[in-house]
């Protein structure tokens, strides 16, 4: 059979260099995530998949769908494809020690007789390992937990990971950093390979879809005492980082704390927070007055 007689094979939709630039620009404005040409292969593949899924012949057609589709379903699907969701239980656990040994006591002392709830926000929370770690750390290690109402909020821009976080089902190997006693207290075994966070704990975490670059969504988050924002700002450029820092400032109560990932440095982003050096970690505090 010669080439001419082959049935035509649908060529993958073509995405040009300019298309990628305009896509990155659009995606950055929506999410704060700055992607450069070094991730071209990754970007192209995801875009091609989404274009095929929507039967779009040209990139322009697809971009129009993403931008103007009522309800924004395709935008959400695209975000879910493009995010890096890696996370694990007790990641950088010195920060949780810092929380239960120092930050919470300081917040509780400042409350005095005011028994307003203490609010902790894990953003981004990805598949839930971080907020559950926070909850477990408090229950296990903070002696005054019973004296306060504690609310744990957890948010991400990716709706798919939020669903998984709420479900709270993890493979056995995802729990390798979790001590056996803790595992047996806060998880129940589903089968040989999977464990689920117990209902009480799952129901105590409030999961919500939040894009930290969206001012309207961020304006809903107020009265927070501690924000864990770890391994997000590395994907942002300087301007989005500054903006995120400003949103966090407003979301926090005076004296509230932000904890960033170990490779993220607030001093390079903004000077609106005061660095607080605790034995376990440096965190960033909104000035008390």
């Amino acid at each position, binding site marked *: 059979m010669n080439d001419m007689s082959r049935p035509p094979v649908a060529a993958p939709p073509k995405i040009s260099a300019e298309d990628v630039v305009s896509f990155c620009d659009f995606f950055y404005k929506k999410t704060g995530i700055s992607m450069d040409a070094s991730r071209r292969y990754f970007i192209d593949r995801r875009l091609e998949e989404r274009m095929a899924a929507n039967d779009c012949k040209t990139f322009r057609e697809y971009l129009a769908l993403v931008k103007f589709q009522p309800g924004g379903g395709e935008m959400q699907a695209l975000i879910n494809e493009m995010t890096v969701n890696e996370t694990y239980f007790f990641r950088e656990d010195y920060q949780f020690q810092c929380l239960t040994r120092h930050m919470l006591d300081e917040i509780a002392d400042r409350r005095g007789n005011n028994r307003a*709830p203490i609010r902790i926000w894990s953003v981004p929370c990805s598949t839930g390992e971080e907020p559950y770690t926070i909850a477990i750390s408090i229950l296990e290690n903070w002696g005054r937990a019973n004296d306060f109402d504690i609310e744990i909020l957890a948010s991400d821009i990716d709706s798919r990971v939020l669903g998984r976080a709420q479900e709270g089902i993890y493979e056995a190997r995802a729990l390798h950093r979790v001590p056996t006693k803790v595992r047996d207290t806060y998880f129940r075994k589903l089968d040989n390979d999977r464990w689920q966070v117990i209902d009480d704990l799952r129901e105590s975490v409030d999961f*919500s879809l939040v894009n930290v670059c969206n001012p309207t969504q961020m304006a*809903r988050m107020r009265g927070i005492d501690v924000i864990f924002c770890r391994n997000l700002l590395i994907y942002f*450029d300087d301007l989005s980082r500054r903006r995120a820092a400003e949103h966090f400032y407003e979301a926090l109560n005076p004296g509230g704390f932000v904890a960033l990932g170990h490779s993220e440095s607030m001093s390079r982003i903004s000077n609106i927070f005061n660095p607080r050096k605790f034995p376990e970690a440096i965190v960033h505090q909104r000035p008390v007055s």
Partner: protein
Amino acid sequence: MALLKAKAAENVANPASQSGVSPASLDSDDPMERRRAVQQCVEEPNPVAALLGLLREEHENIVRQAAFTELAALGTSEAAQGLAELLSNADPALRNGALEALVAMPEQAMGLLAPLAFCDDPDVRIFAVMMANELPSERTADWLIALAAKEQDANVCSNLAEAIGGTGRRDALPVLQAIIERFPREPYLAFAAETAMTRIREG
């Protein structure tokens, strides 16, 4: 295990406190309200002038930082130009803030490097070097090396040596050697240049 409560998001949602809902005043005594007013400034016909004027009068850091962020977000050459002018302001907090805001608008900041090299004030040239250091690229490395080849101020040269050390560019070695020879009576400068040369050779 009754200590953890759900439904937190509804508790926190308080539309009345949403920023940008009611117009805020720059004359308010409350810095948070002035900050909100700054964020609304961008709606004005000439936001760059308004924000720069405000920066010169406002002393509260949190308000100033919001103005810097808005200028960086505007990202225009006019905003960059205005920020560059603050690099020679007497107030170090304004100089630093301007530098950070410029770094957050890398395209515009790169465009400013060439003219800043000709500024008479050595302090401004130091800021320009610090800015180039925060914008690593071949273009900024070229700029640093070209400035180092002719710079006559010892303090600027010491900043240049440090920044050039981070570029890893071997063609900068003769330029660094020339700095040592240009300032025979400044041992700290020789030290800075030699450290940079070692970094490059070992890098």
